[in-house]
């Protein structure tokens, strides 16, 4: 059984006051295996953020089923949803979404505190995680005191500290300069090599080239995917650009 199974997912946004409704996701089907590093690529308006929101249970699919480790997301009650997210999902946002009232350390602890964990447990987990992410020295600082790259690494730590089944990342390099982006992507690869399943949504070819599989979404459907196989990052980058070029020319890949 796959870790994540997405079958026939549809999302329709009802137009307001009788306006035309928009079909953001038409019919999305894919699976993600345990330990995979998947990137979903698409242009603005292709439905990729909607897809991620549906996967993260921030939004409900109009129809179709999403199974995470055998659990059907649509059967989870609203009241239990936040707890489900906290226990099973890690989320990395484009604009970090760190709380400026907390130090980085407290920001990272937040999901564990919400889950009612003991401080010693939390500290033990962070002590293991912090060196790998290179944030040991800045834990006591506040978000406004550190750079964007450092903020995003703290955000990654916050996503990982709950040992989630899957980490969902929404344009994680979107707000970073190229050097910080490179560092962060290295980090994702490292995290993935440690066995963490990662699903990233991006429109950056470079970001996607680190993934082991890239899916392309357009007009609400996944219409193509490429596997890394044994390619290096550079070769992968080339493959993705070629695909995107074809796409832009309106070529039919199927």
């Amino acid at each position, binding site marked *: 059984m796959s870790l994540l199974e997405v079958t026939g997912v549809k999302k329709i946004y009802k137009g307001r006051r009788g306006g035309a409704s928009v079909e953001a996701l038409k019919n999305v089907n894919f699976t993600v295996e345990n330990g995979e590093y998947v990137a979903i690529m698409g242009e603005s308006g292709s439905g990729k953020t909607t897809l991620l929101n549906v996967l*993260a249970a*921030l939004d409900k699919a109009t129809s179709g089923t999403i199974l995470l480790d055998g659990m059907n997301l649509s059967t989870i009650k609203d*009241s239990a949803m*936040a*707890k489900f*997210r*906290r*226990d099973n999902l890690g*989320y990395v*946002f484009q604009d970090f*979404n*760190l*709380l*400026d*009232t*907390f130090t980085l350390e*407290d920001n990272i*602890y*937040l*999901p564990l*505190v*919400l*889950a*009612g964990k*003991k*401080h010693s447990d*939390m500290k033990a987990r962070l002590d293991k995680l912090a060196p790998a992410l290179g944030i040991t020295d800045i834990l006591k600082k*506040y*978000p*406004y005191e550190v750079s964007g790259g450092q903020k995003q690494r703290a955000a990654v730590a*916050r996503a990982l500290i*709950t040992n989630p089944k899957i980490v969902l990342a929404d344009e994680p390099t979107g707000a970073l300069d190229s050097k910080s982006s490179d560092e962060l992507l290295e980090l994702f690869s490292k995290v993935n090599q440690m066995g963490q399943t990662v699903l990233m949504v991006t429109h950056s070819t470079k970001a996607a080239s680190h993934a082991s599989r890239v899916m392309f979404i357009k007009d609400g459907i996944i219409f193509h995917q490429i596997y890394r196989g044994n390619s290096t990052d550079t070769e992968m980058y080339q493959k993705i650009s070629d695909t995107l070029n074809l796409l832009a020319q309106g070529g039919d890949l199927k």
Partner: protein
Amino acid sequence: MKIGLYPKIAADGIRKNGRLYVPYIATCILMIAIFYIMHLLGYSDMLQNFAGSGTARDTLQLGTVIMAVFGTIFLFYTQSTLIKGRKKEFGLYNVLGMNRVNLGRIMFFETAIIWIVSMTGGLLVGIGMSKLAELGFTKMIGSSVSYQFTISADSIAATITVYSLIFLFIYLNALRQIWFTRTINLLHSDKAGEKPPKANWVIGILGLIILLSGYTIAIRIESPLSALFWFFIAVILIIIGTYLVLIAGSVLLCRILQKNKSYYYKTNHFVSVSSMAFRMKRNGAGLASICILLTMILVMISSTSALYFNREETLRNRYPNQINVAARQDGLFENYEEYTSKMETAVAKCAEEFGTEVSDPMSVASYGLSGYYDNNGTVDIDLDPYATLSSTLDFDRVVQVYFFDLETYNRLNNKNETLSPGHILLGIDGNIQAVNELTVGKKTFEVEKTIDYKDGKLKYAVGTSVVSTFVLVVDDLNEAVADYSEYIDTFGNPMLAWVWNYNFDTGLDTESQLEMRSKISEYIDNEIDDPDFVRYFCFSREAERNDFVSTFGGLFFLGILLSIIFMVSCVLIIYYKQISEGYEDQSRFSIMQKVGMTKENIKKSINSQMLTVFLIPIAFACIHLATVLPIVHKLLLLFGHNNIPLLIMTAGICVLICGVFYALTYKLTSNAYYKIVS
């Protein structure tokens, strides 16, 4: 650019940010209205007819100053919050080609619009409320009383001056914020994290010291005469202390809580403690203001209601019988018995005329002196105590010395005491130690026995005194005080005074009692050969009752009026503070929900935060009330009120009522807050 553009942009800005500006302007209007009413009451002649007008006006004048300071601080803080939310908008204007001068102009028109609206609104509301108050006033204490709530040009002018200055300050502060921020920072200001305030030990401890010294003064005050002066000092210290403690101390407290890992890292505390630590500096001022307002309400209502509800007892203490004839004569009065018996005859004749007779009469002659006690058995009457004291303010050592003769004491208090020659019975009231030998002036009295003069009717002859009292029961009255007739005060009047009180009941109804009171003087003048010889006065309890009702009722009404105003502004401040914070917290809570915060968590965290924010001011206010209650009691003594249990009871009831109001506000506010953030 046309000039007309700026006012338009300014007006648009206010309209578009209505959800924040409407409560802000409402607060401004209310503040101005309160200031106007306080000023009107404190500085106009309106309260002149009050018996206690001095105290009431002094307090209200102090209140006016407090309101001005408090208004400045509060509006200042609120406005910085407002401007913070709009920096992005200004940044955008800046990028689109407006320079800082242009932005300053928009700011100017914005402040000007708010100024005009709040000024007009505030004055109208103020005048309206004072007119409304007039109606309630006459309803409560009868139309015979001429307390007129006039429209005072002086108060309007003062209000305009003070609040225009405050608005000028606010404008300059807004200008400063825009002027010294770079465009890019303006644009990103809503994203830029705010620096968390540092815990400031120095200010926190300083605040605590100031607060405690205010408390100490409040508790240790002894004499009601000096109470008013020290009351003001204590009030000012307590206010400053409250502000410092809540601003710095609350950050300290949060930091200490954060250090305690097992407390801090709990689902309910984590979010609330950290966000409070973050904005306590700003919150502190608001909380302190609420606390001061609450304290004012509690003190005002509990004291004035205690006065009002105790009016009958106060009246009866002062006038134990239906009619009271009192006579006074400076210096020694030889053969006073002859005179008093003539007066008694006159009164009896008058009663006869009215078809009734004098019953339950109490005739007391006494001598009184005031002096300066050295706390060691000697009362100094050489120096004029009030002349000396006006420079030292040490009222605690002023004593009132009364002389009664043994026959009077035994008669009034149903005793059967005897005295050895040269000995006295000594009664003491106030904070003075009993002594075996009392020297008054140059004469020394051996104390035969210490008595409680209040256990009989003698207490009515002594009355409720605001200073400490010695009651000397001697064998022969004129002989005992003969030596004192030579002392004169700075005005050349003898310091010794002879006082005669003749209290009695009649079988008459209220109206006839009043009539008889005015008739008595005719009879006395007929009876005594030289009517100008002694000064005498006639009082009727029924006549005085109206006076008591109007005075105490008036004060009580004032207390209620001001309390309603304060309560409303309290509610408004709390509501506004929480709502504006709610908008700030919106994004925070949405992040936390994404990270896994349940609705349940949100509710709990809001409750924990709100409870703290709500409990701090009322807890502080209760402590303040408890510590100033002794002073309030001393001040009430000036009105002849000496009922401590009643005062404590009214204070307790006031706390309860405030608590209920408060709980309602809490419910209302936390619901609104919850709606915003979830």
